[in-house]
């Protein structure tokens, strides 16, 4: 389906039917596929923070890598700034990268330990040949460092990553992302490797920058509580599919999908009872995705309803649910808004 590329100007990212399959060789001749991302669609509007929430291996990081074109998607459209990133190559792709920046999970591994902070932040400027003179670039770098609350910026610009704390390094990563004045920042678990007390500062900074500069975020996290305080909309991902998507207050307050419900149960730190109501079993491997609805083997609703055939045979589509209109959608044959 060819997406109309001239659509809504407030949409910063429009992912349509994204599929990422990795071919894998199992044994001598058998070739199968890891269906890491299996038909995912969502939009991000200007100034919006959309969180992709799910457990490790669910495909959320793969979605981030696909959006940033760090890998080539198997099929689907990734429309941003009037272009389909999935189709771009070479110079055009490089030019498109100006508007998309990424922040990685590992503050220790994502900065080159041999580069000073200045070099790390100036690198995108140099790559894209922005700034006609060194002093102009200097100014942009200092501004970016200041924006990220790395003060005094002149002194910090001369330091090396190993002289900084984890929180400071992430701020450098944020400064480097901001220096290009992007439309969208993809943040892949930006705080999960930081100490708890450092997390707040980073999250706050990210939200401040959104408020001031109108930057949108695709925020990847496994922690529902973090998404709760940061995101405007949440998409819950399970085994390569979005199973529920909607405004954060709706999804957390009145979840429709049993998996969302399960995540909420374990994240809620004060449910009153000591023992948690927990899903049984483990998430299956992406090599052997269950037939029909991929969640049915673990789904409490499936058991409650006596194991209906449709869950085993038909893959539910992400349909609107509740009174939110198209805003709140859930992929379940028996979707209902819980209280």
């Amino acid at each position, binding site marked *: 389906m060819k997406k109309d590329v001239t659509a809504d100007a407030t949409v910063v990212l429009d992912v349509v039917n994204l599929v990422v399959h990795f071919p894998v060789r199992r044994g001598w001749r058998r070739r199968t596929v890891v269906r890491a991302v299996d038909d995912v669609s969502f939009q991000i509007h200007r100034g919006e923070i959309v969180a992709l929430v799910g457990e490790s291996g669910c495909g959320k990081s793969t979605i981030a890598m696909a959006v940033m074109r760090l890998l080539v998607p198997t099929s689907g459209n990734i429309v941003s700034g009037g272009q389909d990133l999935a189709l771009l190559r070479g110079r055009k792709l490089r030019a498109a990268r100006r508007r998309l920046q990424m922040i*990685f999970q590992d503050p220790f591994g994502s900065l080159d330990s041999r580069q000073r902070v200045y070099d790390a932040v100036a690198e995108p400027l140099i790559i894209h040949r922005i700034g006609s003179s060194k002093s102009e670039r200097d100014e942009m770098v200092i501004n970016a460092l200041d924006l990220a609350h790395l003060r005094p910026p002149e002194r910090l610009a001369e330091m090396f990553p190993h002289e900084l704390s984890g929180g400071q390094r992430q701020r450098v990563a944020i400064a480097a992302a901001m220096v290009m004045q992007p439309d969208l920042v993809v943040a892949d678990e930006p705080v999960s490797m930081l100490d708890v007390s450092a997390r707040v500062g980073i999250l706050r900074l990210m939200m401040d920058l959104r408020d001031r500069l109108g930057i949108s975020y695709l925020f990847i996290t496994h922690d529902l509580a973090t998404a709760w305080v940061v995101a405007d909309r949440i998409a819950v991902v399970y085994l390569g599919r979005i199973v529920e998507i909607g405004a954060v207050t709706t999804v957390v307050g009145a979840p429709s999908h049993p998996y969302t419900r399960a995540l909420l149960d374990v994240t809620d730190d004060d449910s009153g009872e000591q023992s948690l109501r927990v899903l049984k079993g483990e998430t299956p491997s992406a090599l052997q995705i269950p037939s029909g609805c991929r969640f049915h083997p673990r789904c409490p609703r499936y058991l409650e309803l006596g194991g209906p055939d449709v869950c085993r045979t038909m893959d539910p589509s992400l349909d609107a649910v509740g009174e939110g209109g198209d805003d709140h959608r859930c992929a379940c044959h028996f979707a209902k808004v819980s209280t």
Partner: protein
Amino acid sequence: MWRGVWTDHMGRTGVIMLGFVLFIILIGPLIFPFNASAFGSSASSILQGPSRAHWMGTTELGQDVFRQFLVGGRISLYVGVSATVIAILLGTGIGLVAGYYVGWRDTILMRVTDFFLVLPTLPLIIVLAALFGQSIVVTSLVIGLTSWPQTARIIRSQVLSLRERPLVLRARSLGARDVRIMGLHILPNVAPLIFANLVLVLSGSILAQAALAFLGLGDPVQASWGTMLHNAFNSGAMSEGAWWYVLTPGIGIVVMVLAFSLVGHALDRVMNPLRRGAR
């Protein structure tokens, strides 16, 4: 880095030995005025033992062994360095490209590497010497061409692990070209490993050159230590009891190779994060 080498016992020994050897062969000829090729004036000056006039005795042609030793050392070093430069440049270049790009480029480059890995040095130099004559250029070339695969493999495996690091992903996400990533991000992080490997390749090259020269495949005009040994054997120095003729270049080779090896191994231990833990 150097402090690490110094604290390591073997490394310290190696550095001291190296300093001594390099001093002798680089500065030596300037200090000691003996003329290496001057032939002896009479038959009585042939194969003389060490004396006031000739510190290390004379050769079968009445030449001063010590002076030859000083000059010969330079040749050995020169060939060693040239061969190492060839090996490191080729090895690093191929290792870098193979490790970074993976896929078909990697496969092809690795098969080429395997080919050169199994090339036997001796027959190759005999053939090339027959074609192009014996010279230090040919020797350097051969040793370099047969040494680079080892470097390539080491560099490649390091690059393979580096390319998965978030910092490379980040550079790619910024839109950096491959050449920039390889040159700016990967190469500097591989540099310590290259350096450690370089020293080891150097010691191996010197030994290889000495061996080839000993077998008579070296440059006859530019007499290296190996050539000295070659001449010594041919003139029957051993049976004559002219130990000074054999021992001088022999010990020279051993000391120089050992010195580089010790330094190289100490460097490797300092650089290689995997082996650091074993200390």
